């Protein structure tokens, strides 16, 4: 895989023929490492309390919260039976606390307090799973913003 085949460059429409091709190639290592991190948060060997299909659904949900429908569809293809959760207006009796936390970390980051972590712990989410959940949402926050920025550089309307 070359850096032009990574999720970020494909989603932002930067190709070998683009005006930005050389600029992107100068940072090829960054796009390649970003792709490795996407695999680490979406499809880790040790997935803890969040299997790969649920992670895909949550990633699609966070992409939608960032206003990126195309990226949401990229993740939603792996969401299997969890696909309903890819819609931010959907909740789930069993996962209500996790979904509320994901949505808040994604779009009201500044308002997170120690109480939000205590609520997850009280609901039985392990500390390791809290970290896993944060890494997934936090990675998506980065990825959506790099894609949005690259589209903007090429004059694609947000």
């Amino acid at each position, binding site marked *: 895989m070359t850096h032009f085949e990574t999720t970020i460059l494909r989603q932002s429409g930067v190709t070998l023929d683009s005006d*930005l091709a050389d*600029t*992107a190639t*100068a*940072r090829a*290592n*960054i796009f390649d*490492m*970003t792709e*490795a*991190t996407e695999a*680490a*948060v979406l499809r*880790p*060997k*040790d997935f*803890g309390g969040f299997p790969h299909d649920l992670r895909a659904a949550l990633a699609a949900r966070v992409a939608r*919260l*960032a*206003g990126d429908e195309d990226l949401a569809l990229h993740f939603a293809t792996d969401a299997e039976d969890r696909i309903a959760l890819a819609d931010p207006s959907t909740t789930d009796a069993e996962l209500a606390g996790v979904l509320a936390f994901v949505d808040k*970390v*994604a*779009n*009201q*980051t*500044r308002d*997170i307090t*120690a109480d*939000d*972590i*205590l609520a997850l*712990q009280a609901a039985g989410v392990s*500390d*390791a799973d*809290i*970290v*896993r959940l*944060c*890494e997934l*949402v*936090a*990675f998506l*926050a*980065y*990825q*959506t*913003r*790099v894609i*949005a*920025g*690259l589209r*903007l*550089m090429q*004059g694609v*309307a*947000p």
Partner: protein
Amino acid sequence: MSRVIHKFTRNVPQWRPRVTPVKLAEATPEQLEALQVTPSNTKVSDYVLTLAHDVESLAVRSPLFNAIMYDPGGMSRAERELGALGASMVNRCIYCAAVHAERHAQLEKDTRVTDELFANGEAADLNERDRAILDFARKSAGAPPAAGPKDMDALRKAGLSDAEILDLILSSALFGWANRLMHVLGDPVRQKADA
């Protein structure tokens, strides 16, 4: 006794985790490798030990972080710090803002820009280039991200090259990530005695 810091400062506080970090003595070989623990380097911060709970992410994220902030070429290191700081102020990550304001001041050998930012926020009195960088970083960090064509035009008008703009996109977005770990998983604290 310690108290939680709520105001922006360049005086870097301590970071107190809200979850229990991995205990070094109980770390797996994979965690030790990601933590880069060697016989001569056994000091690991609580932050990194906290992230070691998700060792697969930590192992790939650390080199990515360093490449975005420190690789040669493109945008200057100080301006990448400004991108990081703009995002951290939006997300109110007091710890991240302190670390990267301090680095900006060290690299520039001047505290004026970060003094202005902490005193006046969005209304800070900045030169055209810093203003364009800060506005882009700030709007890009919005949720959902809200940087637009006018912000891109302002960067180009201020003289930024495509390589510099890409580095700004990367460094500000990277802090969308870092803020969601640091601000969510812990508190910035100071001991009462040195408050």
